[in-house]
């Protein structure tokens, strides 16, 4: 009996109606705004990086630099490694000298060259510069924007801003980054045989990586040279390759060497499933991988 007395009556006053209705309508509007409006945060944040490389960049400079590495042509001579290490003055341990087991921290090159095999057992050589991803994990994680996207798609380092937290090193899926654990005191064995240092040594405590020889691209373009076509504006590793396994150029230009190679050959990019959109393409061996 007492239950009936305390029965809840649903009385909807105008005020309640307005509050409930307003909240519902408001959430629909907010949801709509968040999913499709200009504030749709996650979608647009993610795209920004890519657009910086492709659309916005092409409007301003018109270029997006990329590289094609032909795994079929590469003979594993390591000339690219040496030219790179000389030109960018990278600290590299010569295997015979400093690769003893006690060396806990071998100095790795910016550009690695290693022996590989396809799944059918055919040997080939694999080399890897920085891939200059359009959606680079390293750019995303850097707490101080010391590494960022340029309009032409290059992932560049600001050595004056880097605090050396090494999060980018951890986030890079391709092991392309290298930390300066100590002040450089070494004599670079590749200079002058393989080139001369065109950039300064990086200070202790910052992270560095392959730049696609950005100093050549920038200076070259100013003087009217075209990267990928003229040696003056092309990365050292591409110039030195004795078999033409590396080509460089503008991915936005359909007539550039890289675009042509991507169009005519079977290419892959490394760990494409991660969605990093690398700017380096690999022509796979004829037998397949």
């Amino acid at each position, binding site marked *: 009996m007492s239950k009936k007395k305390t029965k809840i009556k649903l009385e909807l006053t105008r005020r309640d109606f307005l509050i409930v209705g307003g909240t519902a309508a408001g959430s629909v509007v907010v949801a709509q705004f968040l999913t499709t409006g200009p504030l749709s945060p996650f979608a647009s944040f993610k795209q920004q990086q890519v657009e910086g490389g492709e659309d916005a960049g092409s409007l301003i400079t018109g270029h997006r630099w990329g590289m094609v590495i032909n795994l079929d042509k590469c003979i594993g001579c390591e000339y690219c490694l040496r030219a790179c290490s000389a030109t960018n003055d990278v600290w590299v341990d010569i295997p015979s000298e400093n690769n003893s087991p006690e060396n806990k921290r071998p100095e790795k090159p910016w550009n690695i060259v290693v022996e590989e095999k396809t799944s059918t057992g055919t040997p080939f050589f694999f080399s890897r510069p920085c891939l200059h991803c359009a959606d680079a994990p390293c750019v995303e994680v850097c707490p101080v924007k010391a590494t960022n996207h340029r309009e032409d798609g290059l992932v560049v380092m600001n050595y004056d801003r880097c605090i050396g937290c090494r999060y980018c090193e951890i986030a890079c899926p391709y092991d392309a980054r290298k930390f300066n654990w*100590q002040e450089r005191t070494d004599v670079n064995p590749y200079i002058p045989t393989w080139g001369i240092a065109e950039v300064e040594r990086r200070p202790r405590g910052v992270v560095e990586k392959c730049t696609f020889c950005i100093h050549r691209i920038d200076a070259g373009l100013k003087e009217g040279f075209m990267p990928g076509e003229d040696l003056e504006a092309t990365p050292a590793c591409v110039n030195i390759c004795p078999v033409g396994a590396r080509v460089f150029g503008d991915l936005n230009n359909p007539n550039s060497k890289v675009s042509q190679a991507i169009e005519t050959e079977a290419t892959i990019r490394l760990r494409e499933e991660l969605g990093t959109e690398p700017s380096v393409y690999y022509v796979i061996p004829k037998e397949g991988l």
Partner: protein
Amino acid sequence: MATSTTNDRKRLYISPATLTWIGFIGICITIGLVSALAVFWNGLYITNMTDSVPWGLWITIDLSAIALGAGAFTLSAVVYLFGLKRFQPIVRFAVFVGFIGYSTALLTLVMDIGRPDRFWHPWVYWNIHSVLWEITWCITIYLTIMLVEFAPVIAESHFFDRYPWVRQGAKYLHRLAPMLALIGLAISLLHQSSLGATYGIVKSRPIWFKPSMPIMFILSAIAVGPALTMALAIIAKWVTGKKSVPDDILRSIARFSGFALLIYGYIRFWDLAAVTYYGRTPSVSEAFNLLRQQTPYNFSFWVFEIFLGVFLPAILFLVPRFNRNPGYLVMGALFAVTGIVINRWNVTVGGLFVPLSYSPGTIYQLPPGKYFPGLPEWGVAIGIIGYGLAMLTLGIRYLPLFSKEEHS
């Protein structure tokens, strides 16, 4: 005359135990300072970190210290937001412990970065996409909040007898406590979980990349942070012989911590089941196989993280026979703290041990990232612990951490 001299004597008298303790802390801090100077002078070269394992012991300390400082925001929220005024007497102490935890983390972070002279860069050069940027901001803001929350306590110390205006200001600040607790809660919910996200978002690392990471980090922090505060309050009572916090409050905190640990264990169980039993993606299986074969990961996971770190403390905190005895509570907290430290170590170093794989071929493999902290790293760690102990000792000795006058 006679009485006054004895009084003077009493003031100067330091018991052998105290002297030993001060000496111990002094040695710890000296070792830490020497190691820190060596690192600043030579660079991170003298540590055992490498390009394949760029984070090690120091990051483990950062993560652990921040997680262990979680008692501050949890207990502040309990009192000021959920209105459980019963817990008021421990809030000050919790904020104090939290402050030690966070300042410890910042100190270690400065050691760990390659350019300590640029520690201020995250505040000037923003990358709003970076979780590490967000964490840096949150930690600094939260440290400030704790300082403001704590200001009334410092103002109460005898030193400020001469400056009444300081007390007046502090009293005003104290009225902000509920608001500070709210901001503190929001900020803590953000960064305690983003510390896990630091790992959880790295898609190239198979055993890190999962959405459960932030949740597990914040849950374990909420569970163990208050437990540490509770244990330290008990120890303070033992050492000083003075009343600190009523026993029933400490027991309630222990029970809360026990339940939180069980929830954390429950989430971990599903995480493990989803990742290893049901998921079993090739890269993850391979990574776990490698860890099992070449490191004590499996042993330390089950023994230290799960049984000693979750189940044992949960039993000690929840079963009435044990949680009536403060000794068991301290023991439980000790195990839980060890569990969380081992967990942060396993996450960091275990995840980095698994090498990246990106080659299109079949034979090129990076070597597993072997790492064990070097002498300078241990030295800094000892110094950091010394700093924490020194702060605790000084605080318990000179600050009115346990006074109950703000009850009204």
